[in-house]
Structures are given as structure tokens and as C-alpha cells.
């Protein structure tokens, strides 16, 4: 059920994310070796690839959790980082970077919930502190999000009292509470059981219908196949192959992709 109308519309307006030639090294290890990607409004793109191929790093470079060594990143037409050929791309002021990055929400592999806050407090913290919303204003919305992820009855628990799956669902609700235009997911379902993966996927599909742009690193081939419009296969810091979701799985072109998909159970 991928929709191509959205990606077609993207051509006329500035792309939600436009990354060109991103290079990132950790010491001697070149983790990203010139990665480029354009995301249109409402597009859902899945990133797959073997462990250590740089998927997480790529995501972290898009929202300034890592600074890039070379390349350009534009978010909704605004420049986050420009290549200056000096070994380090140039970023704007801290406030500028924060403003541009605030258009993206992110869900981590390791949750990163705030352990000193209850589930509800985790969700309402940023809307209140960052957006200056009133408690009364955000509360109904937070509860609706908790209901969506099936954790309303855990609203007053602390994260340490939750199972892994529960933690990840809170993390997703927390990111959505900021109403970002773009959502970055780093293996959001890896700690969820199939039942709840289904719930989260429904939520994500709903977001896509509301023109939410999503970039999802995932090991869940089912998700990539069913929900993503486009699939990107990364290996050793480069994009090896990409294509529209069903075609990609039916007829992978590159031998590396073939080998990877062939090993799936």
C-alpha cells in the first residue's frame, strides 16, 4: 500500500530532508562515505542493512547528534550544514541549529527516557519547557498518545518499573508529543512484540496520512515491505541500493542486497 502521490508532490516543494555527500569518520574509521538522500513530504523511507553499516550514525548526522565532516544537510529547505571543503561542514548558530532540528522528532534504540520522571511527565516535559505550553493544554494530548500506545494505566509509573517494550512505546509517545514534521526512528520496534509492533505501525501509518515524513532504521523486513514507500539498503557506510518498497524486495539488483535479503528467515 505505498502511495506515490506524496513523493510526486515533493518535487514541486522543498524536500523535507535533503542530504548530499555526507562523510563521517570516527578516528580512522570512515563510518559514512558520501551518503545522499532526499525525502519528500509525507514520504516513509526504511533504511536496512547489516550491523555496523552506519545506519544509526546516518540518522544521528541528520539531527546534529553527530557533526559531519563533509556534505550538506537541508531540512525543509533550510540549511543545517554546508560543505566548506575544510574537513568539517559549517553549522549555523546554536539557536539556529536547534530551531531547524526541532522539526525532527527522534526515537532511539536505547529509549533514553528520563528516569526521574513518570511516564506522563516524560511526555509533557518538552512541550511545557520548550514550547511553553500550559499543562492543561498538553495533558489531554499526552493522555491520548498514551492510550494510542496502550500505556494509559502506566502514566504514573517510573521508567525503571516498565518492561523494555513498554519503555520504547513511551519514547515514541514522547517524541510525537512535540508534533514534529519529520520523525526519525532508530529501530523503534526492535524491543516490541508483534502485537504491539502492529499498534505502533498503525500509529505510524496514521501519521503518514497526516503528511508526516518518516525515516526509519529497522530490522523488521515486514515493516519495510508493508509501510515504507521506499527502501534504502546501506552497507559499509554507503547506500548500495534503493527502490520502491515492493519492487525492492521482489527483485534486488545488487549482489550484496541479494545476499542480505537471502539470509532472512
Amino acid at each position: 500500500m505505498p502511495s506515490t502521490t506524496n513523493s510526486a508532490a515533493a518535487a514541486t516543494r522543498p524536500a523535507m530532508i535533503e542530504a548530499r555527500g555526507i562523510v563521517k569518520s570516527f578516528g580512522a574509521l570512515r563510518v559514512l562515505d558520501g551518503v545522499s538522500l532526499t525525502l519528500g513530504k509525507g514520504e516513509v523511507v526504511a533504511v536496512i542493512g547489516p550491523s555496523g553499516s552506519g545506519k544509526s550514525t546516518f540518522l544521528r548526522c541528520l539531527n546534529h547528534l553527530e557533526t559531519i565532516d563533509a556534505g550538506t544537510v537541508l531540512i525543509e529547505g533550510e540549511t543545517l550544514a554546508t560543505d566548506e571543503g575544510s574537513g568539517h561542514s559549517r553549522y549555523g548558530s546554536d539557536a539556529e541549529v536547534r530551531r531547524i532540528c526541532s522539526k525532527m522528532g527522534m526515537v532511539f534504540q536505547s529509549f533514553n527516557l528520563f528516569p526521574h520522571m513518570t511516564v506522563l511527565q516524560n511526555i509533557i516535559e518538552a512541550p511545557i519547557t520548550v514550547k511553553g505550553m500550559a499543562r492543561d493544554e498538553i495533558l489531554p494530548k499526552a493522555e491520548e498518545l498514551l492510550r494510542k500506545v496502550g500505556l494509559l494505566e502506566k502514566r504514573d509509573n517510573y521508567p525503571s518499573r516498565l518492561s523494555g517494550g513498554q519503555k520504547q512505546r513511551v519514547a515514541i509517545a514522547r517524541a510525537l508529543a512535540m508534533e514534529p514534521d519529520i520523525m526519525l526512528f532508530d529501530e523503534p520496534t526492535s524491543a516490541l512484540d508483534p502485537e504491539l509492533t502492529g499498534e505502533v505501525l498503525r500509529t505510524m501509518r496514521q501519521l503518514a496520512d497526516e503528511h508526516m515524513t518518516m525515516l526509519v532504521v529497522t530490522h523488521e523486513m515486514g515493516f519495510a515491505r508493508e509501510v515504507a514507500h521506499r527502501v534504502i539498503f546501506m552497507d559499509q557506510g554507503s547506500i548500495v541500493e534503493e527502490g520502491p518498497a515492493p519492487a525492492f524486495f521482489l527483485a534486488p539488483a545488487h549482489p550484496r542486497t541479494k545476499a542480505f535479503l537471502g539470509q532472512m528467515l
Partner: protein
Amino acid sequence: MEYALSLVGPLAQGAQVTLTLFFITLGLAVPLGLVLALARVSRWRALSNAVNGYIWLMRGTPLMLQMLFIYFALPFVPVIGVRLPDFPAAVVAFALNYAAYFAEIFRAGILSIDRGQYEGSKVLGMTPLQTLRRIVLPQMVPRILPPLSNETITLVKDTSLIYVLALNDILRVARGIVQRDFTTTPFLVAALFYLLMTLVLTWGFQRLEKHYAKYDQ
């Protein structure tokens, strides 16, 4: 026993001096220590090194000498030289000295926060200051409570150093009576005063620890 009771009055006067110095020092040294700790972990090298030097100087010399310096030598220093009366001189010396110790404790607390917490706050759009206030400080406080309680309790007893400026804290009052009456009872009564003050502090810190334990595993 009756004698011991007769000592409570004069010693309570000494305790008042002790406690006044204690609370004023705490009120000044804690915020100053936090600012120093932040400067110490900042990426701005010059600032970090300057604070490192300050901490070394303050922890590196006896508080008694610092107090004597501020009292006697500061008036002769150009530009910043002021002639402070005895109690204010003690307050300045104590605050500057303890801020250095608190700074090191706060630094440890700041460094103990998981990197994921900073990343989680950052992607939610929080500024470094908001992250500090809402995420780092609340998580840091329970972790630094034990060393903080150590340092605070040390402060209660360090206040007795103001005897060098001829101020009558509890221990000095006790020593005076010991010499006058040729008996060590005043020391025992003074010890009880200290135990009481420490008991209140320890109790307070343990309540804080319990309070913060609620979200911990």
C-alpha cells in the same frame, strides 16, 4: 550534671556563631560551586583551565591561612584590596574555599549522567540550560548526596577555624571554659552540640536520599 547544664547557655551562644557562619557559607558556596563546575566541564579550554587552577589553589592551601590572608593581607593588595571586619572576612574565605570543594562534587555528578540523557533532551529541542535544570540536576542530586553530606558535615566542624580571627564559635567557647574551670566537661557538652547539629544534617540528607530513591531501581 548541674554544672554541665550551666554550660549550655554560653555554648549555645557559640553555636549561634557556628550556625550563622555555616548557613551563610552554604548559601554562597553551593551556587558558586555549581557555576565553577559548569565552567570546569565547559568546552572553552581557557575557562576550564582557569577554574582548575582556582580549585587547586583553594583546595591546596589550608583554610586557616586563606582566612588570615583575607583578614590581614587583602587590605594591602592593590585594586581589590578591602579591609574586611572579622566575620565578613571569615565568610568570604569560607565561601571561596568551599565553593572549590562543591565544584568538584558537582562535576562528578554532571559527568555521571548518561550521554543518552543529553541526546534525548537535545532531540526534544531543549537548550543546554533547560537540559541542565530539568534533566541533569534532578538526576545528579541523588547521586551526589553522600559526598555532599560529607562536605557539609565537614563544614559544620571547620567553622571552628574562625578562632584565628578571635571569633567565639562553640569550640572556642568550650576551650575557654576548660581553661577557666580546669575540667574537660565543656568539651563533652560541645561534642553533644556537634552531634546534635550533625544528627539534624544527617537526618535531612537521608530523607533526601529516600525521597530520590523512588525512581531508582
